[in-house]
C-alpha cells in the first residue's frame, strides 16, 4: 500500500496523459474516419480512390512506423512537432483507417431501401448520407467502433517509446526504483489501463442496447 501512496503522483500523471492522449486521438480518428468513409462511398471516383489508398497504406504500416514518420520525418520538411501532439496525430491518423472501415461496414449494413427511398424523395448524396444513412449506420457499428477505440487505448502505449511519459513508460522506471514492490508496479499500470478500457467497454455495451435498431 505504501508503494501506491509514494508513487501516486507519478501514476496519476501517467494515467492522465494516457487518458488525454486516448481522448484526443479518438476524437481525431472518429472525425477523420467518418469523413474517409463518406469519401469511400461518394460518387466522385478520385475521392473514393484517395480514401481507399489512405486506408490501405495505414492498415499495412506498423503504428511505430507512423510514429517514426510523424516525429522524426516531419522535422525533415521543417515541421517540428512536439512529442505529445505528435503522438496524438500518429495514433489518430492510424486509427482513422480502422474507424473508416467500421463505419463503411455500417453503411453497407443499412438496407438499400432506405437509400433508394431518400433518393426518390429527391435528397442529394450529402443529404441522404447525413440525414438517413449515417445515423442508422452509426447505430449498427457501435460495438465494432467501440472495440476499435478500446484497441486504440492500448495502442497509445507505443507513445512510451517517443518520450511521452504515459502509463507503460512508468513501468521500467518504477521497476528499477521499487525492487521490492514489483507486483504492485505491474498492478498499478494494469489497473491504469483497465480504468479506461473497462468503463469504455461498459459504456459501449449500454450505448449499443440503447440505440440498437431492431430489424
Amino acid at each position, binding site marked *: 500500500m505504501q508503494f501506491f501512496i509514494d508513487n501516486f503522483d507519478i501514476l496519476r500523471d501517467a494515467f492522465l496523459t494516457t487518458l488525454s492522449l486516448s481522448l484526443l486521438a479518438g476524437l481525431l480518428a472518429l472525425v477523420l474516419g467518418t469523413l474517409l468513409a463518406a469519401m469511400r462511398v461518394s460518387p466522385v471516383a478520385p475521392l473514393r480512390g484517395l480514401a481507399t489508398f489512405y486506408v490501405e497504406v495505414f492498415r499495412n504500416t506498423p503504428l511505430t512506423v507512423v510514429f517514426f514518420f510523424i516525429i522524426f520525418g516531419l522535422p525533415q520538411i521543417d515541421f517540428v512537432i512536439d512529442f505529445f501532439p505528435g503522438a496524438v496525430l500518429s495514433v489518430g491518423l492510424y486509427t482513422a483507417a480502422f474507424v473508416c472501415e467500421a463505419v463503411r461496414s455500417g453503411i453497407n449494413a443499412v438496407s438499400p431501401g432506405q437509400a433508394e427511398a431518400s433518393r426518390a424523395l429527391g435528397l442529394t448524396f450529402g443529404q441522404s448520407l447525413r440525414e438517413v444513412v449515417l445515423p442508422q449506420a452509426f447505430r449498427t457499428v457501435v460495438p465494432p467502433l467501440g472495440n476499435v477505440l478500446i484497441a486504440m487505448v492500448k495502442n497509445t502505449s507505443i507513445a512510451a517509446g517517443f518520450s511521452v511519459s504515459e502509463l507503460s513508460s512508468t513501468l521500467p522506471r518504477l521497476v528499477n526504483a521499487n525492487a521490492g514492490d514489483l507486483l504492485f508496479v505491474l498492478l498499478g499500470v*494494469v489497473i491504469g489501463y483497465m480504468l479506461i478500457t473497462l468503463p469504455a467497454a461498459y459504456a459501449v455495451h449500454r450505448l449499443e442496447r440503447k440505440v440498437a435498431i431492431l430489424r
Partner: protein
Amino acid sequence: MSTPVLFDVPGPRARARARIGTAIGAVLIAALIAFVLIRLAGNGQLDPARWAVLFDPNSGVPQALSKALLKTLQVAAVGMVFATAGGLLLAVGRLSDHRWVRVPVSAFIEFFRAIPLLVVIFALYFVLPKFGVDLSAFAALTGGLVLYNSAVLAEIFRAGILSVDRGQREAAYGIGLRKSQVMTLVLLPQAVRRMLPVLIAQLVVLLKDSSLGFIIGYFELLRQARSLVEFFSRDFGSTYTFQLYVAAALFYIVVNVLLSQLARYAESRTRRSTKTAGTGDVELPADVQMDAGGGEAPPV
C-alpha cells in the same frame, strides 16, 4: 448495400464538376508532394551519396539490415507457430462444457486482451528476473507475442467455430461421434478454413509487433537501424540517420504488404471453396483488425 444505391448516375454537369474538382485536387496533391521533396532536398536528404550507403556492401549496412530482417522473421515465425497452437487450445477450452475449464480459460483470454502487449513484454523482461527467472530478450519478446496473440487468435477461432452451421454439429452427434471427434473432425477444419484470411491478417499484426523487441534490446530491424545510426554518427554525425530509418520502415512495409496479399489470396480462395459452405457470417472481436503494439523509437 452496394455503392451506386446512394446516388444517381452522375449527369454531364455533375461529371464536369467532378472533373474540375479532380483536376484541382490533383494539382493540390502534386503541390504537396513537390513541397515535401523540395524541403527534403533543401535539407540535403535526397543527396544520392546519402542513400548509396544502404546498398554499399563495404559499409556493412546491407548485411546488417538483412541479418536484422532474419532475426525479425525468426521471432515472428516462432511466435506464429506457438500463438496459433495456443490459440486453438484456448478457443476449444473456452467452448468447453466443463465450467472449471471454461472459466479460467475465459479469464486468461480476457486478461491478455485487456492489457497492452508492451506491458506483457515489460513484465516478462523487467519483472520476472527479480523473481529469479531470467529470460533472454528473445524469450521475453516471443513469450509476450505468444501470450497476447494466442488470446486474440483464440477469439478468432472461437468466432470461426461458432460460425459453423448448427446442422453440422447436430449431424456429427447424430452419427455418433464423440465430443472431441465432433470438434476435431467436423468443426475445426471448417472453422480454420473460414478464418484463414483473418488468421493471416493477425499473423501480420504479430510480425509488426515484433518491432517491440527494440525496447528490450533484441536486435531486430529497428534496433539494428538504431545501432547503425549510432555507429555512423561517430564519424559522420547524423548524415545517415533519416536514410537508415526509412530503410528499416520500408522493410516492414514490404514484408507486411506481401503477407497481406497472401491474406487476400486466401480470402478469394476461401470464398470460392465449397469446403466452407457450412459456415455462416462471423462476428469478429475487433482488436483482431488492429495491432496491439508497435515499437519504440530512439531519441534522436
